[in-house]
């Protein structure tokens, strides 16, 4: 009777949705077992230095294996669009912005045999960069493979991807100021215009 009342009380609680435990007879060995998930025993690997625990799966890249800045977690070749102004395409076409880095970047690509422009005499543009990225993403379509490229890839990767990484790491990571200091050619952003002058127009 005592056991029946205990079970009834458990059932009543279950019916109001406040407890989700099974009701077992006292002689059922499951009656004494916890309904909580049995936690796995800590492995030897997890008991090593927490600073750099050894991954259990040796194919997992080490802790420095974060994706390349021009790959990202989505696993595709990607470079931020340079002209990020809040303008229409027509307005941008009437007043195009060029990344000062594109001049040495495109020269680097051409020197390595990766000329993407139909007319190399024309200035490298966003359209050329988009075409280059599309070509790379078609040539390297597996995002999981792409995420394995080393973050600092210069000199470590072969093929068109290697050419891109070498030239991009050297030039697309440089600010307009750095490009000016290297080339001596002024650009829209450097040398800077003082703030207390006429409004910037494009």
């Amino acid at each position: 009777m005592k056991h029946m009342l205990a079970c009834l009380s458990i059932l009543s609680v279950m019916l109001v949705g406040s407890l989700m435990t099974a009701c077992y007879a006292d002689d059922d060995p499951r009656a004494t077992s916890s309904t909580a998930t049995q936690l796995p025993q800590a492995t030897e690997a997890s008991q090593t230095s927490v600073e750099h625990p050894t991954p259990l799966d040796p194919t997992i890249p080490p802790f420095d294996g974060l994706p390349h800045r021009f790959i990202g977690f989505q696993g595709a070749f990607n470079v931020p669009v340079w002209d990020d102004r809040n303008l229409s395409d027509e307005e941008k076409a009437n007043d195009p912005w060029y990344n000062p880095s594109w001049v040495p970047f495109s020269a680097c690509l051409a020197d390595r045999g990766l000329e993407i422009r139909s007319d190399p005499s024309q200035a490298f543009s966003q359209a050329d960069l988009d075409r280059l990225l599309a070509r790379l993403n078609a040539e390297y379509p597996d995002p999981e493979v792409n995420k394995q490229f080393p973050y600092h890839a210069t000199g470590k990767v072969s093929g068109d991807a290697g050419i891109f990484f070498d030239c991009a790491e050297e030039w697309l990571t440089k600010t307009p100021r750095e490009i000016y200091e290297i080339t001596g050619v002024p650009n829209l952003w450097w040398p800077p215009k003082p703030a207390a002058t006429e409004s910037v127009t494009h």
Partner: protein
Amino acid sequence: MDIMRAMVGVGRGVILALQMLVAVAAAALAPTDGSAWTSPSGRIAVLAGTGGTVSTLECYKLPSPWRAHPWWGASKNDPFSPCNTSPPPPTGIHGGSWYGRTDIQTFGTTPAVYAQLDYLPDSASGVAGGESYATSDLTGCASYAAGTAGYNGIKVKVDIAFRNRFGTQLNGLSVLYEHVAAGPYVWPSAHSYKWNNPTAYQRLWSVEDFRLNDSINGGMPLGNVAQVVPPYDYSCSTGNYLHQASAAGVYNYARFIGEGINARVSDIEFVSLANITGDAPTDR
């Protein structure tokens, strides 16, 4: 004992019925944003990087002649929100590969900016910690020098790797914060920092650089909202505000233009990531 066994059978039947009710309820709460949930919730959140007032959600418009991001007052019926998000990525003036784009006005002030997440799973199989690094995404609008005409801060891209307690990488996420005067955690090239989930079953690192998933008690400091002074480049920025977005997910549909939000507290973006079963609210 026969009565007991009969009651056991009834009890198990009740349990099964309740479980079915929960499953049906979960299906009814499935997201409308196209994301796939692996659990009744399954999402994590990117919290507001700074405190202020929501001024833009998802899309921008160009009311001539100012080109300014619009301020529509305290109304949920913003005609520009949300943008056309189907098919992804969002189209429109600021179309691209970033999602859940939100502007937070700070009205001339320059509060601190943090990358902070919420609803990371804390179980033994959940997120114990990981690494992150913050770089500056080089773009035209973000290349004006501080104190010069057109300056409006830089774009900080934060890449976050999520690992379980054994070090296995579960997934990763990129989050963007724009119009930031960068602090020391932002490097021109990647410098990986260690972070722990302080509420996890077991933390990943014995020594951490910062913590995620702990609201105002942590987060990755990125700097401050940039101080923008005239003359502005109206095609880039019109004042002090933070723009944030994520590489996946959607903005929190409960947010509205003119709403006051709190840094490292308010849910700004919801993201579903494979292998990470968060418990973000279903509709908030």
